């Protein structure tokens, strides 16, 4: 410990000869190399979760004192305080019908650290296991979700009336079973009045033999100003990659997505009267018409393409606007 102190002294003495910003950079670099610099996003507190090296009795305040479940960290967090929960590389947590995860503190972010196989992962070990978001302004970033049984009803559920959710860089990966029988029926459900939800840069996958997958993103009621962008959705979804049920959407924006549902199924299926803009989406599915791959009669289209058959190149969905 004394040698650590000496090293720190030297760094600080060196840093004091330069301006404040450089001091901060120098010290942060020092802390970062020791694996403990994960800043809160505001004046709040950082919390740490690690299933491999944590303990239920830990404080959760540093990565070497991490708790072992996300739910434990959520319990520790304070709502609307800028708190961030960092989930450590390799973290793996199982949910069941009795062990759920409820993000019930407004304004909290859950951020996975790591990539590839080290990306933190949540397994769904029961058909009723669910990751719920029940408070406003929450963020879930860089987390993988995996179905480990057949027909998991919902992976992540944004509860009705919860606004300002951001889901960014998350992966819904193939089900655990090698034969491809584990799947989410709906990977992500957005209930009614989940206004200003952002789903960005996520991937959704299901085994080709996943028989119960209905849709990757299900909008089950009227929400306003939902943004879905940069997503890649590929699986045998029997309704559509993005589906709407219950009541029509208003001002939805879907952009820059690759959508590959079950063949002959739709890329996007919104209720009649849904309004918004759909742009730069690519759908691969063999339907009677190109327009059949995108059912959204109240939305404007830009560069929406459907490719029906391999070796063909995608054609424009809908007639091109012309002077009238």
């Amino acid at each position, binding site marked *: 410990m004394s040698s650590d*102190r000496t090293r720190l002294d030297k760094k600080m003495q060196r840093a004091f000869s330069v*301006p*404040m910003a450089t001091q*901060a950079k120098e*010290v942060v670099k020092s802390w970062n190399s*020791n694996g403990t610099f994960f800043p809160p996003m*505001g004046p709040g507190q950082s919390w740490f979760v690690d299933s491999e090296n944590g303990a239920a009795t830990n404080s959760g305040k*540093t990565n070497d004192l991490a708790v072992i479940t996300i739910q434990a960290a959520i319990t520790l967090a304070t709502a609307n305080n800028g708190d961030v929960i960092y989930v450590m590389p390799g973290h793996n947590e199982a949910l069941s019908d009795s062990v759920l995860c409820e993000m019930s503190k407004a304004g909290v972010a859950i951020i996975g650290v790591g990539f590839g196989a080290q990306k933190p992962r949540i397994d769904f070990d029961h058909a009723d296991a669910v990751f719920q978001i029940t408070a406003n*302004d929450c963020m879930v970033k860089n987390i993988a979700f995996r179905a480990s049984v057949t027909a998991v009803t919902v992976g992540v559920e944004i509860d009705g009336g919860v606004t300002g959710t951001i889901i960014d860089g998350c992966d819904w990966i193939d089900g655990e079973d090698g034969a491809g029988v584990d799947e989410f029926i709906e990977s992500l459900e957005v209930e009614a009045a989940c206004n200003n939800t952002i789903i960005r840069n996520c991937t959704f996958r299901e085994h080709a033999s996943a028989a119960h997958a209905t849709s990757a993103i299900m909008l089950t009621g009227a929400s306003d100003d939902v943004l879905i962008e940069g997503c890649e959705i590929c699986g045998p979804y029997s309704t559509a990659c993005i589906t709407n049920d219950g009541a029509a959407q208003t001002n939805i924006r879907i952009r820059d997505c690759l959508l590959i549902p079950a063949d002959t199924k739709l890329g996007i299926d919104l209720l009649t009267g849904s309004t918004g803009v759909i742009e730069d989406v690519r759908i691969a599915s063999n339907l009677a018409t190109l327009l059949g791959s995108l059912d959204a009669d109240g939305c404007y289209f*830009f560069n929406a393409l459907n490719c029906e058959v391999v070796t063909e190149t995608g054609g424009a969905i809908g007639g091109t606007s012309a002077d009238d």
Partner: protein
Amino acid sequence: MSNQRRLMRALHRAHDNGPAQAYGALMQWFATNGGYYPPQGGIGLSWYVDSNNGSDGYDGKTSDRAFATVQKAIDATTADRGDTIYLLPGHNENLSATNTVDLNKAGVAIIGIGWGGRTPRFDFDHADAIFEIDDSDCLLKNIRFMPGAATVTVGVEIEGVVNTVIEDCYFMDGEVSGTDEFIESIELEAGSDNTIIRNCKFRVSTSSNGAVSAIMFTGLSDRVAIEGCDIQGGYSGACIYHDGAAITNVRIRDNLLVPKDTEPGIELITASTGIIEYNRTCSNLTTLAGAIVADGVYAFENYHSETATENGGLARTASVDDG
């Protein structure tokens, strides 16, 4: 005792108690000395504003001694030093006819911290409430602006000053949707050269009667860039509109523009020059070319969709060999 010795002592004490305490002590020290959120200019000071826990009686130098109002922080800054004002998550400030904001210190940045409903917000509770940018080289980032009264004349006004950057800001629909609105969300007065408006979002109800434009030029400005914006609502003039004198070398790119139906996405005064590229407009006009009214600008890949379920067509005829 010098700052250096105080820090050393705090660090030694904290370090002996483990990395968590050391980290906490370190961050506390930097926060106390104004360096936790580094100033944008590198050598300036950071200032903090928090309507929930702050007070204009504080010194504003740390997040736990934040000012309550942004004007107090502006008054505390020094121009052209690289000072940054941080608005803490959940900050919410009401502006009125008499309580306006005047950003009158050159080179100051105002940055909101937080996302979603925690993004700092200014409410405009009177038609004459306004957020003015009155000096050059200022930056606004990650802030929400919401009209709380009918026909608020202007949200953010750039007063003929140069090099303003407005980034990641959200001009929201009115507190009472369809009744409360900005007539002009951002106004650039003459001489607002080199302004950048980037990745901003603008919304107003389609039933609004008072909203004219999201971005309004009221005189000659040179080299203004508007990019990556999402502008949708019942704008009766155009999403990007112009009055007064022609502008020069404007660059408008990669925007989604949905005005009141039958109105153009962009309308500039005759002889305005520049480049308009990669924009998408939605509105039911007689011709696709009507979506962009700008006779002195070059255009690249702008698309217009007239009717839902139609795919946007090129808003202008493609150039061809003409000898």
